[in-house]
């Protein structure tokens, strides 16, 4: 698009396959994400999107294929490895512990410490403050960081998971349907996060079933179908109508043609609306932050 020479991929997989017993969850899947780009991963339920991101984040080890991070081939043996490289993930099931407090969940697995030797301990004060701050930035005011995550609303819980990944995702941010349970405003904030991350040079992999969320932020669209890559397009190659068509499924296309055309038209409208809504949201937030900083003085 605007760049003449594309930067080298940050994270790249080549012909990855993953089997669960007799189930072929992924077959010869290749994809990549460059720094400062958003790769959208699209596909039906059961297409293998979550399985793919679990391979990317070290939860599953691929049965075949290669995994390269910053050009070097590697095998991640656990999510801990991935986190150490700065690859953070929001899982579809959120990976939160219901009985634990918000701040303990936020830093679970990456606890900040203070003190030395046997007195080295979990820095609870810092953890609580950071949790509250990071969530505040998303427009979520958790009333009490000591509240158990199990008692949060679905969207609040999702926001905690996203804020956590954004906080730890130094190089790659992987989001598995992060906007599924979110209100319009919070979904807008998440999309804005994605754009911000991209501007900071982070590579983002973004899974969603909503073309109107994917299209405005995506640079690059990978479509998965029954465990295989069905298509891999840059934004230039793929008008929104076509994206929507592909997300609706190719086989039934003819029968659904008329309906789809209508949907595509509405979709255009909706995308514009969404974009306009997003802008408004951003402006409002900016105003608010200004106000707050003035208030503070």
């Amino acid at each position, binding site marked *: 698009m605007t760049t003449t020479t594309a930067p080298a991929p940050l994270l790249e997989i080549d012909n990855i396959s993953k089997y669960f017993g007799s189930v072929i969850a992924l077959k010869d899947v290749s994809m990549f994400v460059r720094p400062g780009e958003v790769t959208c991963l699209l596909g039906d339920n059961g297409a293998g999107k979550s399985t793919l991101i679990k391979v990317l*984040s070290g*939860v599953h080890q691929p049965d075949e294929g290669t995994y390269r991070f910053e050009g070097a081939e590697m095998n991640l043996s*656990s*999510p*801990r490895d*991935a*986190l150490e490289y700065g690859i953070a*993930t929001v*899982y579809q*099931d*959120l*990976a*939160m*512990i*219901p*009985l*634990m407090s918000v701040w*303990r969940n936020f*830093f*679970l*697995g*990456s*606890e900040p*410490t203070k003190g030395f030797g046997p007195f*080295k*301990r*979990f820095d*609870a004060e810092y953890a609580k403050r950071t949790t509250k701050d990071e969530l*505040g930035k998303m*427009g979520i*005011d958790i*009333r*009490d960081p000591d*509240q*158990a995550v*199990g*008692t949060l609303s679905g969207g609040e819980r999702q926001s905690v998971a996203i804020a*956590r990944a954004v906080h730890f995702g130094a190089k790659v941010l992987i989001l598995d349907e992060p906007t599924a349970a979110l209100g319009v405003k919070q979904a807008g904030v998440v999309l804005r996060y994605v754009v911000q991350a991209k501007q900071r040079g982070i590579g983002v992999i973004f899974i969603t079933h909503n073309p109107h969320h994917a299209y405005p932020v995506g640079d690059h669209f990978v479509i998965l179908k029954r465990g295989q890559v069905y298509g891999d397009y840059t934004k230039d190659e793929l008008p929104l109508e076509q994206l929507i068509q592909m997300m609706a499924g190719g086989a039934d296309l003819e029968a659904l043609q008329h309906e789809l055309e209508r949907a595509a038209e509405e979709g255009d409208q909706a995308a514009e609306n969404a974009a306009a809504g997003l802008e408004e949201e951003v402006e409002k937030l900016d105003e*608010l932050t200004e*106000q*707050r900083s003035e*208030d503070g003085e």
Partner: protein
Amino acid sequence: MTTGTAPPPVTEHDERLRKVGRLSRLLSRPELGAVVGAVLVYLFFAVIAFDNNFVSWGSLSSILNAAAPLGILSAAVAMLMIAGEFDLSIGSIVGFAGMTIMVLVTSPDQGGFGWTLWPAILVALVFALAIGWFNGILVVTTKLPSFIVTLGTLFIFRGLTIALTRTITNRTQLGGLDEVSGYDLAQKVFASSITIGGGRFSIAILWWVLLVVVSTWVLLKMTWGNWIFGVGGDPNAARNVGVPVDKVRIALFMTTAFSAWLVAVIQAVQFTGADTLRGTGQEFQAIIAAVVGGTLLTGGYGSAVGAAFGAFIFAMVKQGIRITGVDGDWFQVFVGAVLVIAVIFNNYIRQKAVKK
């Protein structure tokens, strides 16, 4: 600050947040049930066994002395249970570690090895940790419930203790530890006592307190504690955010084995000998103490302080029944009843805590 006209999404103070007092926060602690329970049980026996001197230093010391070994085990067991696992083999490890010490120090003409005491204690520690490690490895590699795995090792190590002791020494009981070199120091460290107001309080109580303090520190203040609660709350989620789940589990099985070793040493030194059956049934008593102390059987919730009060209740019931002259056969009935009541009460408290 918040008197402005704008309806901000982020305010200095959230209008939906009620001030919750210290009391309410205290109520959401897992050990609350056991603390209240301990007070109630004490008052109960203080009334019905007042004439039998239940309220006295002597009586208190025998309760605490009896509670100490159980308390030591239950502190470690509580941590393991918070991580969602069981260890039924600790009673057998108590037996195994105790016999290891005795076989090593018994003189060669009686079928032993004639070691001095401290090296024997160290070797027993290494064996105990190895058994704990073995339990942990077995659980994380087979992915079987630890209840089954450690039920297996319960029998394996009890059987080995009996079979090996008999093969080597031709006996099932070994004594005479007080004649072994190194006993004097060991006696001071593991079996001495001080007298307060007519009660003889054993040093095991100090070990118990120390273990509870360390466990509580680990659970609430350290990174490991966060991992333990995470592993018990949802092992998959914990793994996905980078918690080394298997490492945590193995370390905790080694911790329960360590506590079993400590109890074995304390009892061997105190009774100047060991028996192949020592520790039998203590795995269940430790689980009961932990559960009475508010630890969830399903993992993810609990405390070492609670388990300590659980052990205290257990010992109190035992002492109360003994000195009131009620037939000892009734002890198990009481323990079972206390357990069920405690679980019902804890469930109720926890639901209140989580719902607020």
